């Protein structure tokens, strides 16, 4: 299925809900897009229009809808409609996927020394959080805020999927996809990846609260006991989740909406 101007899925739906659901996002939205496609094929369509943010990367253009275009679409929604954001979300991966030549670690609030990996340099939590904070409130945050300001619709922001515990999986992906110098740096520890992801998750919750957006955490069913993404939800790269994860997300979103509609009634 080709993604055109975003509303292609809505156009084909067989079941029409009494609200509109619009999704706007970057690469993490791909999991939901694939899930919606699968549902369509199974004749269980989804009341969702998925817009991939249009970005110019060098010569290449990725995505179908500019922020300005999406803001205009969202402006026309009503308060019973939904806007779902999957904008950005990879600050944690930039900071903590490749093993830094000077290994580092952070101590989270409430954690004791034992969670500090021996032989690493401590970066104070608030020092590294200031970088993620800046990233969240930069381009991605401004986009969220712009959409929030434009629409009366209920708005969710999907927290990006948590890290994958399997370092070998990530390493083999690096080795096959990137230059030797990235591959030879190796992969940071799963614990560090999780700490930095959690930091981003917490900062996103804070920012969403400020904007009046509901932050939507990863589905519990997709996580192992320590909160890592279960292998059956891995996309074939270091940071993304797959179609099955998208299916879970859609299911939970729909349940959340139904539950809150019921509680209103």
């Amino acid at each position, binding site marked *: 299925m080709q993604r055109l101007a975003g509303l292609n899925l809505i156009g084909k739906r067989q079941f029409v809900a009494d609200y509109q659901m619009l999704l706007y996002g970057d690469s993490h939205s791909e999991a939901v897009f694939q899930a919606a496609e699968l549902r369509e094929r199974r004749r269980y369509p989804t009341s969702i229009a998925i817009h991939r943010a249009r970005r110019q990367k060098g010569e290449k253009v990725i995505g179908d809808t500019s922020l300005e275009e999406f803001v205009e679409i969202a402006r026309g929604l009503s308060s019973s409609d939904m806007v779902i954001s999957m904008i950005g979300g990879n600050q944690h991966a930039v900071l903590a996927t490749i093993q830094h030549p000077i290994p580092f670690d952070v101590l989270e609030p409430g954690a004791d020394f034992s969670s500090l990996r021996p032989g690493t340099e401590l970066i104070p939590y608030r020092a590294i959080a200031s970088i993620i904070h800046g990233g969240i409130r930069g381009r991605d945050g401004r986009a969220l805020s712009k959409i929030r300001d434009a629409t009366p619709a209920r708005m969710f922001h999907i927290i990006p999927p948590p890290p994958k515990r399997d370092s070998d999986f990530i390493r083999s992906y690096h080795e096959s996809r990137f230059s030797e110098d990235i591959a030879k740096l190796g992969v940071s520890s799963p614990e560090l990846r999780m700490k930095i992801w959690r930091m981003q998750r917490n900062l996103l919750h804070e920012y969403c609260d400020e904007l009046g957006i509901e932050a939507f955490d990863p589905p519990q069913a997709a996580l192992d006991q320590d909160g890592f993404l279960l292998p059956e939800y891995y996309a074939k*790269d270091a940071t993304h989740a797959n179609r099955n994860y998208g299916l879970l997300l859609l299911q939970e979103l729909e349940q959340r909406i139904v539950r809150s509609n019921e509680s209103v009634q």
Partner: protein
Amino acid sequence: MTSNPYKALPDKAFWRRTVASPAPGEVDPVGEFGLTIRPETKVATAGSCFAQHIARYLKNSGYNYYIAETGHPHLSEPALQANNYGLYSARYGNIYTARQLRQLIERAYGRFSPSESCWQEAEDKYLDPFRPTAQPGGFVSRAELEADRAQHLAAVRSMFETLDVFVFTLGLTECWRSKVDGAVFPLCPGVEGGKFDPETHEFYNQDVDDVLEDLTVVRGAICEVNPDAEIILTVSPVPLMATAEPGANVLSATTYSKSVLRVAAETMRKRHSNVHYFPSYEIISGAFNRGGYYADDLRNVVETGVSHVMGLFMKHVTAGVAASQPPAKCSDAKAELMRKAQEMVEVECDEVALDRE
């Protein structure tokens, strides 16, 4: 006319010739300065807030401003600055008194462990009483504070053991200390954190003997781990913000404080061949500039004053040897790694659509 000892003295010995007559910007109160810094000389700094100007100039001069506690390369330059890395050679914040410097070295080498070692301000905000402003927002836990302190004190040890020149700017004699073990705080508890408790905290105003003893211990400790180290002492020209000396006026208290520090610095210079004095205090507070080097608050130093100090510092200390390299761009390597990490994630993000099932 009979001869007298003054006849043979150079112009710098005469007030009219060297202070009153020259244009203010030409006044050079440096007497003797027997130390030369070369571009490769590792110069570390510490001291009261005026020392930040010295650090800033050295950093931009192309000379080897030595930062032992650099902060992790993952932190961007703005993040490093915002978190006070590079403000001084280690992340100790302002060191106002000789006692504070002495205790820093003693703490670094495990010879002193103050009993009041952590101020909890909130559930997730812990301050180090000996550098309460070093980490903006504080540390998130006591464990983090202690881990960062251990890392910090290791950097302090490394700094003292490997520096070539240590520039220390003496700022104050007045301090607040623990009645329990004499630990001196950079700021009165209750100002930037902690709680003032008259049962456990007390005011103390150092005299010349105190400062001399502290500086002597500091010098001894540095020489013990680094026998070739040279020390430059300066006195901050910045007046006291407030005095806690009972019954004192802040202007008189400032004069007392600076006089004690100046005497102690001069005594150290005369006693030890590896201690030098640079007259930052005289350049800024000298009557020749008619107060022009102070801002409207008569306390902060304006940039022309700082330039005068640092121009003379570079002239005398570098003996005219220009730095051959522009300031080192240590950020290049880290920028490259971040670029690769970003590229890795972006390529993934671009290609995720290719992996459709």
